[in-house]
């Protein structure tokens, strides 16, 4: 086995009385699709928020590419090549698709207009955004300057996923990217995930949809009560087993990190 | 023994001086003085609350420059019922006998002096004067009405009802605007009058801060030389402005005198219950008023700015 690209040990995160992460471990291998499954409130979102700098864990350590990292903010994680689509999507409704895609990494005009007057290079950003959306064949958006709030839920989710896919150079994280999507729209997202992986970028996928998970995942991280319970391969176990593990109905297999 | 001083604001230099004068006198006579003020000129409620605090504090006397001369009367009565001597300073209550005594400038006289001076200075042109009036507040407290009407009487304008300003019909009047008695108010009010009639050539102002604001507005349109500004107060900055030609004439008041007389009256009252008496022939104690100008006219008594500077306050 090669070295994990993203690794965490003993992550702890408390919200008041609730311990959302309770000495949780995590590993993502290069080039893989790792699914994370678990009951509601198991701490999945908290885990990926800690990995992507959206929350600061109260304890524990994170390594990226073998180097210890501490992300003070999502921007920080992004600078290291980690892109995340959060459960809430994290888009600014009144801003345009291009504005949203480039939020926090805007392109500036070349020359003095950019360096001194810090003028945005709108045409370049729009061109890139249009390309990315088309390239991913995800949707039929007429106007790249449309405000995000005028998009349907599915289109919005598409823009968020496209943003992550376009900019994630090391790791792409998706938190329940298909929860609100219909059958057709979900299918597209799954295709996109495969697409990203085929570019060599590993993906963390959180989902409650077992068929989807077993379809695309290379490995499945099962989360329970704030901890990693075990990691399984979809070929070794059935969906029924996975469900039994994650709900505590069955004893988890004796893998290294089992709680 | 303790006393209270309640002024309209604690930001107009006139009241700042009044407070200093009262403090000095109180220290001299061994009286403990607490000072209160409204937030803005016209803030009646704060003055009511201050009177109530003085009652609670067991003060022997209250010196009050009322912001709303009729609305405050009940609170004054409550204080007097509690055995406190209440003296109105600067601005008489409405009715004037609601206070035990009033130590003030004869505000009508103050207006009259500058009115007569302006009329005499303009000579024949007075018949076609364009008059702007910068008043205090829309509630028309007594001091506001007295000075305004005094000025108009002095200038020879028919007053209509002498108990309010704004009902005159003389076509020479361009308009009345309120200023809250400060620079900014004076400036914007003057700008409005100028927009109404750019040919204004006489400006009455309620006090010197308002006059200073009006001057800036006139200066902005280059009319500072050709317009006559008259005012009331006689503070040192105002007297300097007379010397510098900013203000043509001002009626000087004596706030330090009001304050020290007031404290003395309270001290006397605390000792044996004697109440101060008004000036002969008037229903208040007149602390005096003097016209200050460097361009004296016949028939109106005045002193020059150098002399005025010796008497000025603040």
């Amino acid at each position: 086995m090669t070295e994990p690209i993203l690794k965490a040990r003993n992550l702890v995160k408390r919200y008041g009385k609730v311990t959302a992460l309770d000495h949780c471990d995590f590993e993502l291998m290069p080039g893989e699709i790792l699914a994370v499954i678990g009951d509601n409130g198991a701490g999945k979102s908290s885990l990926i928020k800690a990995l992507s700098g959206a929350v600061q864990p109260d304890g524990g350590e994170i390594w990226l590419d073998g180097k210890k990292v501490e992300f003070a903010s999502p921007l920080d994680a992004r600078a290291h090549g980690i892109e995340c689509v959060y459960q809430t999507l994290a888009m600014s409704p009144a801003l345009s698709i291009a504005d949203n895609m480039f939020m926090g990494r805007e392109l500036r005009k070349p020359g003095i207009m950019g360096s001194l007057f810090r003028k945005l290079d709108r045409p370049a950003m729009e061109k890139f955004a249009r390309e990315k959306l088309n390239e991913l064949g995800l949707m039929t958006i007429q106007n790249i300057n449309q405000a995000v709030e005028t998009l349907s839920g599915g289109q919005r989710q598409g823009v968020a996923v496209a943003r992550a896919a376009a900019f994630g150079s090391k790791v792409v994280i998706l938190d329940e990217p298909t929860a609100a999507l219909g059958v057709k729209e979900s299918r597209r997202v799954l295709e996109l995930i495969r697409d990203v992986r085929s570019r060599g970028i590993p993906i963390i996928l959180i989902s409650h949809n077992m068929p989807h998970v077993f379809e695309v995942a290379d490995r499945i991280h099962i989360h329970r009560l704030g901890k990693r319970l075990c990691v399984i391969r979809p070929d070794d176990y059935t969906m029924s087993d996975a469900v039994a593990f994650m709900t505590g109905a069955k004893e988890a297999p004796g893998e290294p990190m089992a709680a | 023994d303790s006393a209270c001083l309640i002024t309209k604001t604690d930001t107009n230099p006139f009241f700042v001086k009044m407070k200093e004068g009262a403090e000095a006198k109180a220290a001299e006579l061994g009286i403990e003085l607490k000072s209160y003020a409204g937030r803005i000129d016209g803030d009646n409620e704060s003055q009511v609350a201050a009177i109530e605090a003085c009652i609670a504090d067991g003060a022997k006397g209250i010196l009050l420059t009322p912001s709303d001369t009729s609305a405050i009367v009940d609170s004054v009565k409550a204080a007097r019922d509690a055995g406190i001597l209440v003296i109105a300073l600067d601005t008489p209550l409405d009715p004037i006998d609601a206070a035990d005594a009033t130590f003030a400038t004869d505000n009508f006289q103050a207006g009259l002096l500058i009115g007569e001076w302006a009329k005499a200075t303009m000579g024949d042109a007075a018949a076609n004067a364009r008059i702007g009036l910068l008043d205090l507040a829309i509630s028309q407290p007594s001091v506001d009405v007295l000075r305004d009407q005094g000025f108009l009487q002095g200038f020879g304008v028919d007053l209509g009802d002498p108990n309010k300003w704004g009902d005159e019909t003389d076509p020479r009047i361009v308009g009345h605007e309120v200023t809250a008695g400060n620079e900014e108010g004076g400036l914007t009010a003057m700008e409005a009058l100028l927009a109404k009639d750019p040919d204004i050539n006489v400006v009455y102002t309620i006090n010197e801060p308002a006059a200073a604001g009006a001057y800036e507005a006139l200066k902005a349109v280059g009319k500072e030389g050709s317009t006559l500004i008259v005012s009331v107060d006689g503070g040192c900055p105002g007297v300097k402005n007379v010397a510098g030609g900013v203000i043509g004439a001002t009626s000087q008041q004596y706030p330090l005198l009001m304050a020290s007389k007031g404290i003395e009256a309270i001290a006397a009252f605390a000792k044996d219950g004697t109440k101060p008496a008004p000036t002969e022939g008037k229903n208040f104690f007149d602390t005096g008023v003097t016209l200050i100008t460097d361009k004296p006219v016949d028939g109106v008594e005045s002193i020059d700015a150098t002399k005025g500077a010796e008497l000025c306050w603040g």
Partner: protein
Amino acid sequence: MTSNGNTAAGFEEGLQGASEKVAEFHDDKSLLKRVQHWLHQTPSAVPMIVLAVSVVVFAILSENFFRATTMSTILQQIAIVGILGCAQTLVILTAGIDLSVGAIAVFSSVLMGQLTFRYGIPAPMAIVLGLALGTAMGAINGLLISRLKLPPFIVTLGTWQIYLSANFIFSANETIRSQDIAESAPALQFWGNAVQPGGVKILFAVFLMIALVAIMSYVLRHTAWGRHVYAVGDDAEAAQLSGVRTDRMILQVYALAGLFCAIAGWVMIGRFGSVSPTASTGQLGNIQSITAVVIGGISLFGGRGSIVGMFFGALIVGVFEMGLRLVGTDPQWTFFLIGVLIIFAVAVDQWIRKVSS
């Protein structure tokens, strides 16, 4: 039920024997935490404590402070703000804000006065009309907010100016003198009467304020209407979907707030004796009542807080102002310290919410 149903969800058989545990809870039993928890559960506790502390401090600093007469004076000084605060509390609980409260109060008092004196309507009748017109002014706010869906801040910013200038125009800036009222329309000054148990004068106005707070506290806590006020402020859309007539509710709340303001206007006549269109309540009543509400721990985002907290908030401001006056601080220092108090009260509140969340 259907033939292919169970196959499709076949993996769910893994659920058999699933554990019931949901998440781990560490019950922290430290004293501090328990105090915080209690404070969190009791929204009016923080202002109550601040109040008690400030009373003690001022009693030490000034011998004249902790006296029955001083206390009754403080109560009478906050009567108007307290009643306006009832109006403001209702509105803020629905996540609104009412900048026009002071203007409605002053205009209502002017209406009562002028209807009596200028138009010769008998005082009791004029009072009823004044209350009705104040309610109508509130209702106009409510209509603009609930029907046209305009933000409360803007609507009441506009009507504040409108009501206040209408008040000046209508009154022709005339003050009605106390003596005249006492003579020919004493009903207008009703709330200025007092009881004197043991020589300490307590205005009827004070009892009225306390009664209004008590009634509204009951209504907000123990009636469906009160729960709906909270629900609308919490999440208006959710309230609407779960069966609250949000629009009607908002209209009622602003109209009732208007009524309270008109009552405050009537009380103003009793307290000040005269009827004056320039009363500074017209300018400052909104900020004063919002300050009481905020210090009282009511959230400006709606749905959280208690009207009793507002009452303590008003009392705290009253105690501060009187205390600092008696101590003899410069009035500007009083304003300064009240500014600090506002921020401090909300910071404490935030801290409690955060730690005990």
